[in-house]
């Protein structure tokens, strides 16, 4: 009973072949059943995520959160979804009807497509692509397209502004993400996600901490969550690209964003925290699912923690941060990791790990030193006394202020 899913699959296959169906059709039926099962489980988890999100944001903001419907407010997501379903379904006049309705479907579908390559246990995964990492990048690119379609088809200036900001942010932050994704590929010698998990006898968080941090930051930017949520900045562009969406279409965007956050948690734990690996996960494969979801929820908590602590970042600061800080560091860390991997490939594990850790610490230290000197020169330039037009106004003593006010 340690691998119940394979047992059930075997039993179903024998049952269907016993009914007389050709084996090709049986394979197709089993695949469709597996896809439906994963999809349904993920969407059910998604509804639970609404509750998790609202309770945790409440605790961060020193209040209780929903606690009226059901014990601890557990029925609240059902009420939320019901509210969204019974709302009026509006299409704005002049909007591009087909694209307008297609955009939320693409937004949710691209998130669910990501789960095709995440391994749940050693035997249980959607598809063991040998280019799994590149598949993740490709699906991220298609999700950007979905948001652009939403912004354009709404025929609303604010939505269009939101869509243009989205393109700038998401396409920019793909660059350091792809560079940093090369580091687990380098350490595991394979682009297949299952291979990367199998090779992680020691978590890659210890071998490449800077890469993990950069991956987390760029994934939060790809999600469109705070501090990078200027795509839907309520104070600036009134909800950005999903301003014209009501009812269940908005529900698809909202649920898609929450599920995407959990997916980023699962991806981070798969690439850097060992995925389904844990004590006894080799002998009892079904424990792997448990470990994966525990790690995914821990990273999801960290993402929420960042969201409800840090204010929103301005768009020029965001682009500067990406191109002038993250991309050079990602390139440097990639080159350093590749060099060290080649030099230390024959040494013992202890020397390898210590070497990588020390190299990462040196890169981080140098970066902080450069930032500090840069900040010092900037501060010196700004702190210089400049000539003013009326010097009597420059001092802050009350007497000179009162004389200047009477002189006006």
């Amino acid at each position, binding site marked *: 009973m340690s691998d119940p899913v394979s047992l059930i699959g075997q039993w179903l296959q024998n049952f269907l072949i016993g009914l007389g169906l050709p084996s090709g059709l049986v394979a197709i039926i089993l695949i469709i059943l597996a896809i439906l099962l994963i999809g349904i489980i993920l969407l059910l988890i998604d509804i639970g995520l609404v509750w998790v999100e609202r309770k945790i944001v409440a605790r961060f903001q020193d209040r209780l959160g929903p606690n009226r419907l059901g014990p601890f407010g557990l029925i609240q997501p059902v009420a939320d979804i019901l509210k969204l379903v019974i709302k009026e379904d509006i299409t704005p006049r002049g909007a*591009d009807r087909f*694209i307008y309705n297609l955009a939320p479907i693409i937004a949710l579908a691209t998130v669910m497509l990501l789960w095709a390559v995440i391994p749940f246990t050693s035997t249980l995964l959607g598809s063991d*692509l*040998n*280019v799994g990492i*590149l*598949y993740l*990048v*490709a699906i*991220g*690119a*298609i999700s*950007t*397209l979905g948001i*652009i*379609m939403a912004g*354009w088809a709404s025929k609303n200036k604010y939505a*269009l502004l939101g*869509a*243009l900001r989205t*393109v700038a942010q998401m*396409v920019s932050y*793909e660059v350091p993400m792809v560079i940093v994704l090369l580091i687990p590929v380098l350490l595991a010698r394979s*682009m297949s996600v299952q291979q990367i998990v199998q090779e992680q006898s020691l978590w890659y968080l210890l071998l490449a901490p800077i890469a993990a941090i950069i991956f987390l930051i760029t994934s939060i930017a790809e999600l469109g969550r705070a501090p990078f949520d200027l795509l839907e900045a309520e104070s600036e562009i009134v909800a950005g690209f999903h301003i014209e969406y009501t009812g269940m279409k908005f529900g698809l965007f909202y649920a898609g964003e929450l599920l995407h956050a959990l997916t980023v948690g699962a991806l981070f734990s798969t690439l850097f925290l060992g995925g389904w690996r844990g004590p006894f996960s080799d002998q009892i494969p079904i424990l792997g699912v448990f470990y994966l979801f525990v790690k995914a929820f821990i990273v999801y908590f960290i993402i929420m923690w960042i969201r409800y602590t840090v204010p929103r970042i301005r768009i020029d600061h965001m682009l500067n941060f990406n191109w002038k800080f993250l991309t050079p560091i990602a390139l440097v860390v990639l080159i350093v990791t590749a060099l060290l991997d080649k030099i230390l490939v024959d040494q013992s594990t202890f020397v390898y790990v210590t070497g990588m850790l020390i190299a990462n610490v040196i890169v981080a230290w140098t970066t902080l030193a450069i930032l500090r000197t840069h900040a010092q020169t900037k501060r010196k330039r700004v702190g210089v006394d400049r000539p003013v037009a009326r010097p009597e106004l420059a001092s802050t003593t009350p007497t000179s202020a009162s004389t200047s006010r009477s002189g006006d």
Partner: protein
Amino acid sequence: MPIFELIFILVAALTLGAAFLVVTSKNLIHSALWLVVALFGVAIVFALLNAGFLAVVQVVIYIGAIAILMIFTIMLTRFITQSTGPRFNTNWIWALIISFLMFGGLIWIFNSWPGINTQLPPLPADFDPIRQLGIALVSPNAYVLPFELASVLLVAALIGAIIVAWERT
């Protein structure tokens, strides 16, 4: 009909239909989105030929970068929603005749090539196309020189873009 040929015909029909709609669509954004569908069809053809890496790279680069850049540019165009005039000019009969002649000529050339009826050889079980591609790109007997020249070309394009967009204060 064997399943492989059936899938290929469906995918080819999807790609060609989407490509036709790119050219004949009234709305420019619709043309760009049909182009995305056509590029996706090409990615599926790559996947059918066991070139998984090329299929995913096609999606990342063509759809994820080039198509998005085109859509971005189209969105910044003025008067995009106004009518652009008739889509076909008066010479469309001649264009149709010449394209059919070219199609017939290409079919005849392909049929007279002896290699058209060869079957796809089965790949060995331990064939790792990515490893072969990686070795071919950096091996001195293979393609390292064109690879490096392509990289230099890309750096030149990047530097040129920066210089063109540099604000002279």
